């Protein structure tokens, strides 16, 4: 690579890291080598020190910057992921632009992974040579500043979304809470009791729903979906379709006469999990927020046949509006929280468990509705005939979870859910209950105690994954029952357990459309379909896209307390952002040089963040720096070489390759190439 005209003054600092580096690499030799051989590159000083990251080490660099007038700094120490910020700040403190400092790793990638001291020392020289060659082409950069809009978009009105919305609204910032269903509440609204304390789910959830519905800072958009998202952290613009409820909300009192009078019954496979009916005009459940019903146009007689209008006839406030159109809203927000929750694993997929074929096999959600006193059976646990109480009930754990044929992951809530079911069955019917489990996982507060309580209650626990549930009876005692076939793995016995009712504790799955959601918001989702967090341990709330956060089961299976905690945490992160009023972004960005751009449009769809805009009038493309995440794919893809990427420019990388191959070193000194 051609050298630049003006020579830079470069300082090289080699860290011992105690013996972490110096134990394998001859640090003194490396330092001297750099001073001698990288002179032509502009190295004017090369030092080694015990701990470069210590305040003394940093002062050493700062002193040289001031006294020797260094224009570039290369530190050879640990991974940039650990101390890049440290050394950049040190340079900044001495008046050197922080981006003119390069940290190269001779610890994680050299001394810690090699044993041959000579080879490791030579490799360290090459790494430093690469860093020096690269740093010559560094540019002084300034972080980008973007203002933050104070409003927040929360997608999903389950417990996680409600919690997040309330926290932010209570802090005084506006929130748009978007929910696909006619009411907020999510899955939690379907439950009867919640483990391990067995509080009534409605009793603890309803007040929060009402708060969210009445909050002056929360704009509730139910029966609505986000269709498009543009913009970037600080100023997103979301396009929301508010589906027609077919009534004027302003006039509706939620009196309920319309759904009483509606002649059309529909099987409710959302809220009632197919266990009960609703009308064509309906609220999903009595405590729904908002209280207004919707007309389900697919099933409404009027929309099918053109006549009926019973609801309109009886409505006391005359609010029914059959001609109502969907509304398209655009809202501007600074941050987004995604809390769209989960879908239940389709138990029909495991044919040997007989769901859908054998009537008395139930899913967990069906059982939730059945045991709910507001549910289709009035809270009675009965067989599919609607009246017979079971005498023996089998609860199958891990249905669709921990199984490579379906989902490999543990759904994490099923053990506790199954224990809860076992308790409820016993309490309501006195039946014998068998739990078939692979492992009992009760890792949170109060959970193990709940398990002990169940053991004391006399529930049977059989360790073995159920092989099949069938109606193939063999013995008189099995007559008319379902036979659960399983190995009791603790004794090695083959068991055939006859039961009246089997409950499949089905796992949680990502929403069927989670991949579309991820695409819509420009974030990543795993192969399973769970959205990917920025860091699995240290940042489970944020995503790789600035300004977009995730909470609750959209990130992975979790229980109510964890969902609430994540909702609140996401809110805290958003509020922190809003308070900053503006944010600084890393200046690693792509830029298109307009005079070189031919408008060929190769780059246009290389950007998953839609940061590249094509101007039809001028026939050139342009990068929006606030949307650009700095991956550099367009830089590599531009056939005209018209795109440059700051921080990782072609010159920097090509020059670093030269350095790594020691092509910048006088020939006789080139080592072990």
């Amino acid at each position, binding site marked *: 690579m051609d050298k630049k005209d003006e020579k830079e003054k470069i300082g090289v600092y080699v860290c011992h890291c105690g013996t972490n580096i110096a134990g394998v690499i001859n640090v003194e030799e490396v330092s001297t080598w750099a001073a001698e051989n990288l002179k032509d590159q502009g190295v004017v000083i090369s030092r080694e020190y015990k701990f470069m990251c210590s305040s003394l080490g940093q002062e050493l660099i700062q002193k040289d910057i001031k006294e020797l007038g260094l224009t570039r700094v290369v530190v050879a120490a640990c991974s940039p992921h650990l101390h890049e910020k440290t050394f950049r700040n040190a340079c900044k403190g001495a008046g050197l632009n922080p981006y003119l400092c390069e940290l190269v790793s001779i610890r994680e990638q050299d001394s810690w992974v090699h044993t041959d001291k000579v080879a490791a020392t030579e490799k360290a020289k090459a790494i430093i040579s690469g860093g020096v060659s690269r740093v010559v082409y560094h540019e002084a950069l300034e972080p980008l500043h973007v203002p933050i809009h104070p409003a927040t978009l929360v997608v999903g009105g389950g417990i996680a979304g409600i919690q997040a919305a309330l926290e932010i609204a209570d802090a005084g910032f506006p929130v748009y809470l978007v929910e696909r269903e006619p009411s907020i509440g999510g899955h939690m609204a379907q439950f009867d009791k919640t483990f391990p304390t067995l509080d009534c789910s409605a009793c603890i959830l309803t007040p929060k729903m009402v708060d969210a519905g009445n909050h002056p800072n929360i704009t509730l958009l139910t029966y609505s979906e986000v269709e498009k998202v543009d913009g970037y952290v600080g100023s997103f613009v979301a396009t929301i379709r508010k589906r027609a409820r077919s009534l004027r909300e302003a006039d509706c009192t939620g009196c309920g006469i319309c759904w009483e009078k509606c002649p059309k019954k529909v099987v409710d496979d959302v809220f009632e999990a197919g266990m009960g009916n609703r009308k064509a005009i309906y609220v999903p459940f009595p405590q729904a927020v908002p209280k207004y019903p919707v007309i389900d146009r697919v099933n409404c007689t009027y929309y099918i046949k053109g006549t009926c209008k019973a609801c309109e006839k009886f409505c006391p406030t005359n609010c029914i509006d059959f001609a109502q159109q969907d509304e398209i809203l655009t809202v501007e927000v600074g941050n987004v929280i995604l809390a769209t929750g989960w879908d239940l694993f389709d138990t029909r997929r495991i044919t040997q468990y007989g769901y859908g074929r054998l009537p008395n096999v139930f899913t967990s959600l069906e059982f939730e509705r059945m045991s709910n006193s507001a549910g289709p059976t009035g809270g009675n646990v009965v067989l599919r005939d609607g009246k017979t109480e079971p005498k023996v009930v089998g609860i199958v754990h891990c249905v669709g979870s921990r199984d490579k044929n379906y989902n490999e992951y543990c759904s994490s809530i099923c053990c506790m859910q199954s224990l809860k079911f076992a308790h409820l069955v016993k309490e309501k019917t006195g039946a014998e209950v068998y739990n078939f489990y692979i492992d009992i996982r009760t890792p949170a507060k109060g959970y193990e105690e709940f398990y002990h309580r169940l053991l004391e209650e006399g529930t049977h626990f059989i360790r073995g*994954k159920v*092989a099949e549930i069938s109606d193939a009876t063999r013995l008189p005692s099995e007559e008319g029952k379902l036979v659960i076939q399983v*190995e009791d793995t603790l004794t090695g016995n083959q068991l055939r357990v006859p039961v009246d009712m089997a409950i499949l504790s089905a796992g949680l799955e990502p929403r069927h459309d989670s991949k579309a959601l991820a695409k819509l918001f420009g974030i990543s989702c795993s192969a399973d379909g769970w959205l990917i967090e920025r860091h699995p341990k240290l940042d489970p709330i944020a995503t790789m896209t600035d300004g977009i956060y995730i909470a609750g089961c959209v990130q992975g299976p979790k229980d109510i307390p964890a969902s609430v905690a994540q909702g609140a945490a996401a809110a805290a992160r958003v509020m922190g952002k809003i308070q900053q009023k503006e944010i600084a972004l890393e200046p690693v960005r792509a830029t298109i040089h307009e005079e070189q751009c031919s408008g060929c449009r190769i780059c246009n769809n290389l950007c998953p963040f839609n940061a590249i805009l094509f101007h039809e009038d001028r026939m050139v493309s342009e990068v929006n720096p606030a949307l650009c995440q700095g991956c550099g794919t367009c830089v590599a893809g531009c056939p005209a070489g018209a795109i440059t990427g700051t921080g990782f420019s072609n010159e920097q990388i090509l020059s670093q390759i030269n350095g790594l191959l020691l092509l910048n070193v006088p020939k006789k000194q080139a080592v072990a190439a």
Partner: protein
Amino acid sequence: MTDTITFGQEISNLLHAAEGEPLKTCIQCGTCSGTCPVAGYMDNSPRQIIALINLGKKEQVLESNTFWYCASCYHCTVRCPQEINITELMYALKRYSIWKNRYKEGLIGPTFSEAFVKMIVRGGRSFEPVLATSYIFSFNTREFVQEIQGATELLLKGRLPLLPARIKRLENFRRMIGRIIPMGGLE
């Protein structure tokens, strides 16, 4: 560079289509045993066999009748949540046991298998009457009588061959087998 190879590795090496050591991923859930139609007759259930292999209990495994009872129905295999091919494992154990010439006494499986293999090597096709001699003498009297009765009836209905079938290019066929195993080993 490991000098010693564990029993689990030995068995894994015999699993032709698998990669790595699939048995290590067993979570001992018991689906295989619960599914197995013959598990009730086995002294160790398939799940227990996997546990024993993972523990390195070679003797106990070889003393077990489990794999000789496997009917190759593959029901466990299609249901295993860890996608372990348990049926192939049973095959592997049979092979291992025959190679080591170690199996539980009183089993018909091993002798029957060897007789079958020899028969094919000789003629290229299966011939039931010869085969019968490999096992019928180990039956108890009642079973023996039943088997002979059944065979007689089959013969009367024209369903038993009287002469062994042979393929045409038998010489080529034998040389072909010779390239896999030296003939002396089996003849």
